[in-house]
């Protein structure tokens, strides 16, 4: 039906989130002179980066037709174990940098294994992703609360929190890490065989199965990778807070991550989406939060705005389809 019509629809789909961000930036800059100060902008990016990193992994999961609700609890669980390991290394008299490395290794390993657990139950167990990750969401949080007796895991390592608040070329470390992962994932999604298969699985699993491709392996890897990036976030956020609140760390992260992916134009039903779209989606959420703060809106109402934005984004997606 007419190449022109198709191309228009395509570009609206591609650049919709970017246009929304541009409008949001102009509005925010007009509303507050403080908004455009570099300090404020970097602060927004830092706040965005923690759930933004998870959203990058979530993009693969959702494009392949899945969902992962367990990421927030998983971050708390991985972070708690990381702090415990680091403090234990400290007590054993090891240098601080060994403790930091130990914490990073434990967080990444716990995240990866937890993701693999989700992936195994979904592919081998043939259980719906929504149910599996709803279950592990409860399990990870409960284990975290149990280990910490619902209290705090405080780091005894000074180097750990120093790294967490460090900047490089004025830009906070977590932002650098998010950008690096985004670039890497974008290449994977757009340019590699695996990326192609992920989109294909989300588009039509049967075609992929009939093309003699191991569908389970592709789906499994999306959850494993998502777990790995949750581990990265667990490290960065526990560095920031110099510890882990067993009842607070990671709460509602799944909401922010899924919202960023959806706002970024990834189809909720799977099959299409981009990494840079997710980055834009995460930044949109961050700017909205920042704007609400500066406008003096109650923080308790921010969830309402976020919820409306997610529902609105899906509504727009549906209109276009």
């Amino acid at each position, binding site marked *: *039906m*007419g*190449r*022109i*019509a*198709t191309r228009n629809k395509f570009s609206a789909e591609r650049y919709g989130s970017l246009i929304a961000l541009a409008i949001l930036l102009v509005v925010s800059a007009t509303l507050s002179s403080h908004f455009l100060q570099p300090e404020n902008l970097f602060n927004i990016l830092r706040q965005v980066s923690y759930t933004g990193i998870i959203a990058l992994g979530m993009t693969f999961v959702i494009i392949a037709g899945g969902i992962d609700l367990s990421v927030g609890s998983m971050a708390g669980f991985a972070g708690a174990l990381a702090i415990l390991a680091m403090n234990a290394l400290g007590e054993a008299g090891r240098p601080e940098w060994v403790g930091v490395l130990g914490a990073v290794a434990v967080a990444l390993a716990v995240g990866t294994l937890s993701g693999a657990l989700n992936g195994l139950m979904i592919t081998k167990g043939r259980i719906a992703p929504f149910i599996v990750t709803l279950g592990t969401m409860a399990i990870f949080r409960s284990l975290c609360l149990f280990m910490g007796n619902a209290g705090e895991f405080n780091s005894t390592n000074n180097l750990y929190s120093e790294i967490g608040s460090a900047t490089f070329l004025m830009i906070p470390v977590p932002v650098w890490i998010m950008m690096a992962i985004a670039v890497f994932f974008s*290449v*994977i999604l757009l*340019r*590699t*065989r*695996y990326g*192609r*298969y992920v*989109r*294909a699985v989300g*588009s*039509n699993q*049967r*075609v*992929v*199965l*009939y*093309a*003699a*491709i*191991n569908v389970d392996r592709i789906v499994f890897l999306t959850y494993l990778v998502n777990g790995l990036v949750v581990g990265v976030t667990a490290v960065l956020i526990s560095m920031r807070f110099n510890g882990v609140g067993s009842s607070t760390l990671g709460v509602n992260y799944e909401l922010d991550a899924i919202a960023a992916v959806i706002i970024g134009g990834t189809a909720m039903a799977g*099959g*299409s989406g981009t990494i840079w779209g997710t980055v834009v989606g995460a930044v949109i959420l961050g700017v909205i939060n920042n704007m609400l703060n500066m406008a003096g809106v109650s923080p308790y109402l921010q969830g309402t705005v976020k919820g409306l934005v997610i529902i609105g984004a899906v509504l727009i997606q549906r209109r276009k389809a």
Partner: protein
Amino acid sequence: MPEAIIRAEKIRKDFSTVTVLNDISIELHAGEVLGLIGENGAGKSTLMKIFSGIYQPTAGSLFIDGQPVTFRYPSDAKAAGVSIVPQEFNLCPDLSVMENVFLGEEIRTRGGFLDQAAMRARTRELLAELSASVDPDARITELSAAQKQLVEICKALAHKARVLILDEPTTVLTRIEIDSLFRVLRELRARGLALIYISHKLWEIEEICDRVVVLRDGERVHSAPIADLSPAEMARRMVGRELSDIFPRLVEPAADAPVLFEVEGLSSPGAFENISFAVRAGETLGLAGLVGAGRTEVAEAIMGLRRASGRIAIQGRELRGHKPKDAVAAGIGYLSEDRQGSGVMVPFSIEENVTLVSLPGYTRGPLGLVDRRREVARAQQLKQLFAIKSASTAQCLNELSGGNQQKVSLAKCFDPEPRVLIVDEPTRGVDVGAKQDIYRLINELTAKGIVIILISSELEEIIGMCRRVLVMREGRAAGFVTGEAVNEQEIMYLATGIREGA
């Protein structure tokens, strides 16, 4: 002449700047079956969507019993007595026959509750009128394709349809089921219904229709009583050029061609039992049988998509492992019968579709980076080879016609360079021009020494393409027919069990 039940006058339909229907005028009288034919993309479906209220025409008008009408929604058309039996059934699989028949038009008691008894009785009555042996309480999932179709017709009758549109009603039916469908249609015609019958199978048109309208590129190019139009003439009018024989010359493998592919004692519990055959290099073996005889299941078992026991060998070397990737690695390709369900990815480009199976061959480095330049070059090559009509290879499949999608699907199976290619209903829902292209391609492949196993429900296709046919019945090999014996009668004898094969 009495007033037409439904009349369309100068119907025009534009999608953005493209005109897909141009000044179409059609009228239909009570007790008449109108055949509507044309290649894919000729505008048949669009016209029928206008008749049934799914699309609104850009210009032109519709009349029912001589009164002008506007169908804003499908419900308007239904209320005016126009019902469609779509190609893809529109039934809720988990609801019962009765619940489907009355969906949206439930009979209720005075208290507002569903009057199950009344609906059941009425459904039973309607089914009896169609002489259909279907239980009103059976769930749709338990029914065969033919039974589902009867339920669709029943649904239309329950809504007091006077005009019934049938869009490709026989694609999923066997010959015997088609015959009984035709009996039902003739009965409806005798009762004064007006029917519009859309099909690619011209012999069906000849058998059931009173009058034919031919569409080409959105224009009405011909209209004639069926007696004045032979199938060959219909085909010529549809494509607008002379068609030589639809099938290419039958080719036989070289007399000394070695056996390339062997299947021995292949069984899959519940699907088929003890299937054996051997095919020589460059030979096309037909696999015939009624729907449900187990042909597709045999193909799936060979491809490792279904659990099975038995021996499969290529060039005497037994196939190890029974995963799909083992079959592909051994050189077996499979064109699935369900194009959109398991053949191609509609939102993906031609390039991404044709390399789906063979993608490992286009990647490098530990990350598996896709070499886009090579991929595009190959896609362009295949586009030429398979005569795929598209603006470019970057075009997405949802912009291509069904026939071109099917060629993409075939190209996808061909790209890994299989030595054995199983094609399952390769021309289903494809127009005459694309059909010819596909037959030519199949013969080009056998000329290269590839083994083709052709599964088809269209007997003329099997007869036109194969010198040897394995006929299956109820999961067993009913027998082989070869050479001169490859004709409709012999195959049907075996397929229906009238005669047991050697």
